[in-house]
């Protein structure tokens, strides 16, 4: 968010905030449009894994902007940021654990 402090007039603060809102909206819209274009034009021979990694990256960029600017977490104390974001690391573990499990289940089915 653009810098603002108590020395600024309310109009200046509002203008600074509006600038951020417009910037974030433009970024979110641009990334979403890019995702569409990629989904439609990605050629047959190219690696789908590569495309999925791109989608994943863009999703996290969008999520970052929504959490940090729209939900204002970027401007809270670092302790609050930590308390909210740290538990999300457990989800990474859940992903790893369950995807390994899923692979094991299909292997068991196929090699029965």
């Amino acid at each position: 968010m653009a810098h603002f402090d108590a020395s600024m007039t309310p109009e200046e603060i509002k203008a600074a905030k509006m600038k951020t809102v417009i910037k974030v909206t433009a970024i979110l819209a641009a990334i979403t449009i890019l995702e569409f274009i990629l989904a439609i034009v990605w050629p047959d021979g190219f690696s789908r894994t590569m495309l999925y990694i791109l989608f994943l990256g863009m999703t996290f960029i969008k999520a970052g902007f929504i959490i940090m600017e729209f939900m204002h977490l970027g401007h809270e104390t670092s302790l609050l940021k930590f308390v909210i974001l740290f538990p999300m690391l457990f989800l990474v573990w859940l992903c790893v654990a369950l995807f390994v499990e899923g692979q094991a289940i299909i292997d068991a089915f196929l090699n029965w």
Partner: protein
Amino acid sequence: MSSSTTLTTPEITKWDGGERPMKATYGKLMMWFFLVSDAFTFASLLIAYGVVRYMHPAWEKPFSEFEFATSSDDLYWPIPEKVFNAFPGLHGMDIPLGFVGLMTFILILSSVTMVLAVEAGERKSQKEVEKWMLWTIVGGVLFLGCQAWEWSHFIHGSANGVVRDGVQIFGANLHVNEYGPQLFANFFFFITGFHGIHVTSGVIINIVIFYNVVMGTYEKRGSYEMIEKGGLYWHFVDLVWVFVFTFFYLI
């Protein structure tokens, strides 16, 4: 006994309350903690979707030649782009993800109007808060309408359906699924349904807040913080949709 009394301000120590270690009010903090738990619920659903998808065979041939599975011996997972390719009023045309894209934009825009409502609330400008809250509610209701259409189309299926094992199947429900493995349909209903329930409760919360703004409740209270708390929830619903959009529709 002295005739005069001196007023001393009571000494408040750290343990007497009134401290805000994270510089956020109680209500906002609790909303954040609720959202963390809700994030875990949604993440579990999406991860479960991923695991089940891993457990099913995938379409091996070139992407553009995709057809829905015609035999239950080779029931591969569908490519979402080929499932969600209909648009209201444009019957029979192949518009991959067009309608979902429209829904995404509606939700992002309603998130933006919510930011503007919070901003107006900080300036205590009742009229502007009213205006932006109303737009947010309109966006939420529009999104729900779109989702109803999406569900209806998913349930009724494509015009020609699919012949699988000699039986013609139209659309999907909890017993049959034109598009592929049964669990694909079940996850569609559960994940988008659970998100839709969140949007519905978000719209109700926004309507209550809008009513209070119009009645001047926050004006009398001297603080428009409730808009911020409702806003946190509304942005979270948008955030979840960003993830549902990627993991259910794009990948």
